[in-house]
C-alpha cells in the first residue's frame, strides 16, 4: 500500500510473525530501493539492515507468535529514506547488547545483528513503548556516499528505553 503525506511518500506492509516473511520483506525492500535508484551495493546493505530488523521483530520481539504482527514502513523524503519496523514484543535494552568486535565477543555465535544495522545505515534509533512493542527506525540519506559506518560510532541518536 502506498500513501502520501505532506512531505513524504509512505509505503506500508504488515506481516504475520513468520520467518518466511523476512524474504517477502526483502522483495519489497528491493522494489522500493530500485525505484529510488540506490545502487546494488547500497541495496544489499540496506536490505540486510531490514533483514536483521525483521528477524529481531519476528523472532526476538514477537517470538513468532502468530497472533502478533510486524509493520514495515518506508517514508520516502527527497533527501533520505526512513524505514520503520515495529513489533508487538516486550522490547529490549539495546545498551545491554555486547559489542561484537570486543576481543571477548569475537567468537560469540550471536550479537552481530544490531552492529550490522548500525554499520550499514546512516542513523539507527530504537524506541521501546512498554505494553505496545518496539519500533526501530533506519535512515539512509539519498545520494550520500556509501562509506560503511563502523557499526557503533554513531550512537548519539538512540532513543531507547528499557522496558518495564
Amino acid at each position, binding site marked *: 500500500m502506498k500513501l502520501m503525506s505532506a512531505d513524504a511518500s509512505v509505503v506500508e506492509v504488515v506481516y504475520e510473525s513468520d*520467518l518466511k516473511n*523476512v524474504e517477502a520483506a526483502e522483495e519489497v525492500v528491493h522494489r522500493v530501493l530500485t525505484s529510488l535508484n540506490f545502487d546494488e551495493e547500497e541495496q*544489499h546493505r540496506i536490505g*540486510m539492515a531490514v*533483514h*536483521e530488523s525483521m*528477524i529481531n521483530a519476528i*523472532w526476538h520481539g514477537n517470538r513468532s507468535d502468530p497472533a502478533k504482527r510486524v509493520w514495515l514502513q518506508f517514508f520516502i523524503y527527497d533527501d533520505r529514506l526512513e524505514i520503520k519496523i515495529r513489533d508487538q514484543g516486550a522490547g529490549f535494552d539495546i545498551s545491554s547488547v555486547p559489542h*561484537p*568486535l570486543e576481543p571477548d565477543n*569475537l*567468537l*560469540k*555465535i*550471536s550479537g*552481530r*545483528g544490531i*552492529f*550490522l544495522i548500525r*554499520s550499514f545505515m546512516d542513523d539507527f534509533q530504537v524506541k521501546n513503548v512498554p505494553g505496545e512493542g518496539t519500533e526501530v527506525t533506519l535512515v539512509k540519506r539519498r545520494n550520500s556516499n556509501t562509506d*560503511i559506518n*563502523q*557499526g557503533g560510532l554513531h550512537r548519539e541518536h538512540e532513543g531507547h528505553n528499557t522496558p518495564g
Partner: protein
Amino acid sequence: MSMKATIRQVNTVTVVDLSGRITLGEGCTQLRELIRDLLSKGHKSLLLNLADVTYIDSSGIGELVSGFTAVSNQGGQLKLLNLTKKVHDLLQITKLLTVFDVHEDEAKAVASFDKGTAAS
C-alpha cells in the same frame, strides 16, 4: 532458496560446496547439523566453499563461527574458500577475517591443512 551442500574429499581434506542462503532458520540449522555430522565421522579438516552462497546474515555468520569453534575444539581446522564480495565485506566488518583462514585457490587451501587433522 535454502542452503544446499555437496561434500567431496580432496586428499585428506573434506570440501563442502555450499550454495543458497545461510540465514536464521533452515539454512543455519542445516549447516550446524552438517558440521556436527562430519565431526562425528572423524572429518576434522573442513574447507567450506562459499562461492555459491547468495546470502548470509548475522545468524549465518554466527554459525560459521560456531563451526570454527567446534572443529577447533576437536583439534581440527575449518577454513573458508571463495568468499563472494558480500561475504568478504561482512567478515571484514565483523573482524572475522582475523579469525578465519580464507583462501581463493582450492589447491592451495587443501595444501595448507595440517596433516595431523586429516579425515580418518
